């Protein structure tokens, strides 16, 4: 390469390096959601390695837990039997209340609850390196998983599907700093938007006058985002006031500990409102709407 062309290349690189951040910040600053198949090819190529590693690691962990480390198993068993007995009595009570609730809803002419279609998935990876928190699950496009679908666990909300490969999907966690969820305060029925905070916490800004207590439970409002109403989200841990600010800042601890997640459920139902419109406008419209809603 001649001296002149070298200098020209250097100049081009310098200008492109200076321009690159401007180009990047002019974009929407959102994660890859529906990347082209070529982009997902890398992840699809790495997926078998991920599966093998997860199989090995969880195999070792299970062997240790199930066959070697059994010193506390008897005590735990006894404690769980106690819990089970109390839960069984509560379930009987709960069934009675559900039936009564359904009767009352029918009497009042409220719309019935839609049946949730759930898909179980195993968690095979969790990215801890950066602050952009996600987990990878073993269900993908082939299983009917789509971007924007809610993901839950036994304890409550986990997050939503952000990217789908052929055999895997990435879930944006509730604690991700770019995650926002419409919630209700279970005791007072006040609405607010919960935002991820990173490091296993979320935050909620509410007006100072709204009454709130440490330990209050937050549930999904069911209004936007496709999450059914009433799913447990987290509990209030800390409330901070600033004298010059009209808002109170509420720190929320999610019920689900994402670092210990092994299995999750994907709610295959899309937003019921979207489903109604899709029946008229067609599936292509729905894809576009979900894409816009998740942005």
């Amino acid at each position, binding site marked *: 390469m001649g001296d002149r062309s070298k200098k020209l290349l250097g100049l081009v*690189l310098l200008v492109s390096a200076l321009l690159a951040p401007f180009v990047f910040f002019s974009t929407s600053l959102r994660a890859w959601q529906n990347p082209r198949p070529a982009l997902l090819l890398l992840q699809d190529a790495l997926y078998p390695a991920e599966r093998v590693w997860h199989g090995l690691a969880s195999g070792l962990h299970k062997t240790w837990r199930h066959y070697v480390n059994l010193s506390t198993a008897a005590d735990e068993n006894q404690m769980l039997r106690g819990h089970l007995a109390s839960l069984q009595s509560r379930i009987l009570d709960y069934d009675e209340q559900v039936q009564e609730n359904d009767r009352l809803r029918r009497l009042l002419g409220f719309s019935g609850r839609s049946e949730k279609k759930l898909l179980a998935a195993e968690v095979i990876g969790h990215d801890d390196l950066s602050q952009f928190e996600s987990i990878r699950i073993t269900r993908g496009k082939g299983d009917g998983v789509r971007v924007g679908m809610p993901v839950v666990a036994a304890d409550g909300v986990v997050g939503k599907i952000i990217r789908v490969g052929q055999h895997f999907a990435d879930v944006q966690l509730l604690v991700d700093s770019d995650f926002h969820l419409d919630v209700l305060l279970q005791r007072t029925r006040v609405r607010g938007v919960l935002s991820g905070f990173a490091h296993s916490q979320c935050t909620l800004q509410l007006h100072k006058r709204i009454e709130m207590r440490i330990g209050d439970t937050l549930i999904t409002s069911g209004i936007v985002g496709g999450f059914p109403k009433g799913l447990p989200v987290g509990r209030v841990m800390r409330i901070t006031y600033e004298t010059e600010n009209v808002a109170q800042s509420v720190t929320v601890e999610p019920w689900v500990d994402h670092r210990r997640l092994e299995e999750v459920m994907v709610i295959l139902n899309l937003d019921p409102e979207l489903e109604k419109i899709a029946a008229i406008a067609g599936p292509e419209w729905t894809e576009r709407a979900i894409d816009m809603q998740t942005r």
Partner: protein
Amino acid sequence: MIDLSTDSLRLNWAQVRSYLRFRPHTGRLWWDVLLLLFIGALHGTVLPSITGSLVAIDLMTPWLVTILVVEKMPRAMIFVAISALMLETHTTAPAGLYLCVYWVIACVIYLTRGTLSWRHGLPWLLTYSGAQIGVIGFETFVLAINAGSRPFNWTYLFVQLCRLPLAVAIGMLLCRRYIGRGTSAEDD
């Protein structure tokens, strides 16, 4: 007929051994790409499950920086694209974050590498530190734009402070073979 003489076996073994060397730059593009994919798999799956959430090990940046110092520019850009896309499509990081930061690092390294002597440890140390500070700084800036000051606390600071020396240490391990000998890029 298969030649099973000692000399032939020794020659074949030497060839096989050249593939078994686990380093960022072997000179064969396809093998280097495979090794980068392997590093990506380690980085995204094995390491996080071993280290947990308080210690973050960045394997990708030092590996890529070594390639950028040693490799020719057009080839190096292939590695930049692969590693950035591997990171971006595995996390919820904004699309283009790592493409942007790695592109800037690649350009800076290309423009400065001819003026530094890679026979010494100091340029490597400064390059690894600079690249890692660039990645952490850019991530932090993007996070601040997206989420304000909410995510920043002592845990965040601790994680990033651990991440920097660990990445530099990994880098210094990777560049050992060039210290005292230099790189072919110095002749460019």
